[in-house]
């Protein structure tokens, strides 16, 4: 009987974000399959089960509870891929001692591991991303944004509102004017917002959209003649799913990303060869291989599998790890360049080193541009403004601890 590590996968493949889900979860599952085909993690095989959440909080909770039952104590990290669901699961996962991996989304103050031992806002938070984008713009403008006007157009939900604090702080520091333009869910009509852009005539639009809001924005920008080169999207507004439907209107559009698109990453090429070669691929539309979201899914897989590997190093190779053990590993992950290279993932995602104080572990982004057919990476890794952002997390986490009556761990002892 081979040892197994069970992944509860809360996926969404139907509904408004179904198209995004196809790529994301396709990538993640393909990677798990790939690991298995390469012999697993020290012989431990990855197994998984999907549960459709439809991006709906209540269904997400139901899925979690159901799959949790199947996982028992030995659950691989859960990726609740929706800010709403991740919020709903924070308490539960802590109680169940199941690591909650919110990679590039979710409750941002969970960066503070002393209050959130089982929640991991890994790789990057929206705030770090926003400040990194500001930094990029600053570089574009010879180091100063003074007197510039930047519009922040966002999905009017938790997702879009998180970065506002950081952007407002940046605006004060860098003396640019910040114009906030919220877009009501789902954002399939943005006439007014772009008229507002016409009225304000900002130098840049930082764009925090999701789903249909993205293509609509690109089309609307074209309609009012706003240059797409001056529009910089978040990493959830920078995938093929967003640009392709906008057609020509997307050309020149920039976006942030923490993972790189394309099949030229050796790992992705290898997955195509190994997994799809054996006919075991998860994607029904192979064209999505190497897309931004697919590669993001692969990155999720890497993070999870590497955490398991790390846990095994400490708690016993070739064994099934418990949720708690994996949580420890996720808190002590060190994916440096060498490791990434060994995985064939150089350049796919930034190096990551997490700790109890810092579940984020990176906070770096690249900027990419849509050339009409594909995303082209434009920059090297750009760091967010940690000094500005991380204290915000600390304060917010402290507040949470107070509300919930949690006594924060002492991170010094957490090792």
């Amino acid at each position, binding site marked *: 009987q081979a040892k197994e590590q069970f992944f509860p996968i809360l996926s969404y493949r139907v509904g408004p974000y179904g198209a995004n889900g196809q790529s994301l979860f396709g990538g993640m599952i393909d990677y798990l399959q790939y690991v298995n085909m390469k012999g697993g993690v020290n012989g431990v095989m990855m197994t998984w089960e999907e549960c*459709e959440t439809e991006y709906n909080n209540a269904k997400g*909770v139901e899925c979690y509870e159901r799959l949790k039952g199947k996982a028992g104590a030995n659950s691989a990290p859960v990726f609740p891929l929706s800010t*709403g669901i991740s919020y709903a699961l924070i308490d539960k996962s802590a109680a169940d001692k199941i690591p909650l991996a919110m990679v590039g989304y979710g409750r941002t103050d969970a960066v503070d591991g002393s209050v959130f031992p089982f929640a991991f806002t890994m790789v990057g938070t929206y705030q770090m991303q926003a400040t990194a984008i500001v930094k990029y713009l600053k570089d574009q403008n010879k180091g100063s944004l003074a007197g510039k006007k930047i519009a922040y157009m966002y999905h*009017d939900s938790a997702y879009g*509102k998180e970065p506002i604090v950081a952007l407002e702080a940046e605006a004060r520091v860098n003396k640019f004017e910040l114009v906030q333009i919220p877009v009501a869910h789902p954002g399939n009509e943005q006439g007014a917002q772009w008229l507002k852009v016409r009225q304000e005539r900002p130098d840049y639009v930082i764009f925090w959209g999701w789903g249909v809001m993205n293509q609509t924005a690109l089309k609307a920008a074209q309609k009012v003649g706003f240059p797409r080169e001056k529009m910089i999207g978040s990493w959830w507004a920078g995938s093929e799913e967003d640009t392709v439907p906008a057609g020509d209107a997307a050309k020149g559009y920039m976006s942030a990303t923490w993972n790189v698109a394309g099949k030229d990453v050796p790992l992705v090429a290898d997955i195509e060869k190994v997994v799809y070669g054996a006919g075991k691929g998860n994607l029904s539309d192979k064209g999505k291989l190497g897309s931004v979201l697919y590669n993001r899914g692969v990155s999720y897989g890497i993070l999870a599998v590497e955490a398991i590997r790390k846990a095994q190093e400490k708690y016993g190779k070739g064994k099934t790890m418990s949720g708690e053990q994996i949580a420890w590993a996720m808190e002590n992950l060190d994916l440096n360049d060498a490791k990434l290279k060994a995985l064939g993932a150089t350049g796919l995602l930034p190096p990551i080193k997490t700790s109890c104080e810092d579940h984020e572990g990176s906070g770096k982004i690249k900027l990419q541009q849509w050339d009409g057919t594909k995303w082209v990476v434009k920059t090297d890794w750009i760091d967010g403004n940690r000094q500005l952002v991380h204290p915000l997390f600390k304060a917010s986490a402290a507040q949470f601890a107070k509300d*919930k009556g949690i006594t924060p761990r002492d991170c010094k002892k957490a090792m």
Partner: protein
Amino acid sequence: MLYREAGQFKASFAEDMQIFPIRQDRIAIGLLLAFAFFGVPLFASEYWFSAILIPFLIFALAALGLNILTGYCGQLSLGTAAFMAVGAYAAYNFQLRVEGIPILVSFVLAGFTAAAVGVLFGLPSLRIKGFYLAVATLAAQFFIVWVLTKFPWLSNNSSSGVISAQKIQILGFSFDTPVSKYLLVLGIVVVMALAAKNLARSGTGRAWMAVRDMDVAAQVIGIPLMHTKLTAFAVSSFYCGVAGALYAFCYLGSVEPDGFNLDLSFRILFMVIIGGVGTVLGSFLGAAFILLLPIFLDNTLLPTAHALGLPFSNATVSHIQFMVFGALIMFFLIVEPHGLARLWQITKEKLRLWPFPH
């Protein structure tokens, strides 16, 4: 054979007007309650509590609320989720801002807050009817959710608008396990369901139904339309508000305004329609059906597909689920437009006549 009322004579009107006039029904309900309170905690798993039983009860309560408005009073509403949101946020704020307030009091106040908002949005019903009103209630749906996102004070200035429900403590006992939460919710729901049943068979309920069936005639026989409709809005929203508070405190633990979206409103409306418009029982049957059906499909479709060797991807299975769900709703409406409760009633009638067909 067992289900007969023959031989049960009613000697007084009081007996005839009992909440469950047939003895077998009374026994069945008693057993059911006993089972729910004492039996279920013995062998249900945590999954059952957190993912099925608790949401079932909460949704049933919300459906009951909507049923009061739509089923009994005939005012179609698509804004249920928003009233739940009001309840959730109100309960949170009462807990947050009033020192030492007992949680149950918070729930009741949350209900009242929702009722007040409900009355406000019920005012147009005095002039607007039918689908026009339904669309008008969408105004409530969108507006309330917007207000909750836009006034940070309501979510204690959380940058995201998300609130995390406080701990539940009653008389020093804290309800933090799924079982205890289940019992709390069950208790509240049972009390409120009984109250609803009482209301429905009282003068208030009759006034509602009269307005539903024919408002001009109702007015002519002396039922004041305004008062009647507004009480329906108030009571309905009260129920939804409490359901919303329970949703936040006993089910999800943390909620965001967007969670109370139109989809949720529709789900609850489904429960009412599929369960049976204008019946208390229907709210429960409907909630069970709408909640369990997708879970059931989830658990059966994929294994079935695999067992049959069909090359279905997960996505396809999800799509089929959508289709089956939609088809079943249509199917039920066709088979019995009056919902599961009516099916149940017909079954009972047949049972009573059994073995004769008519």
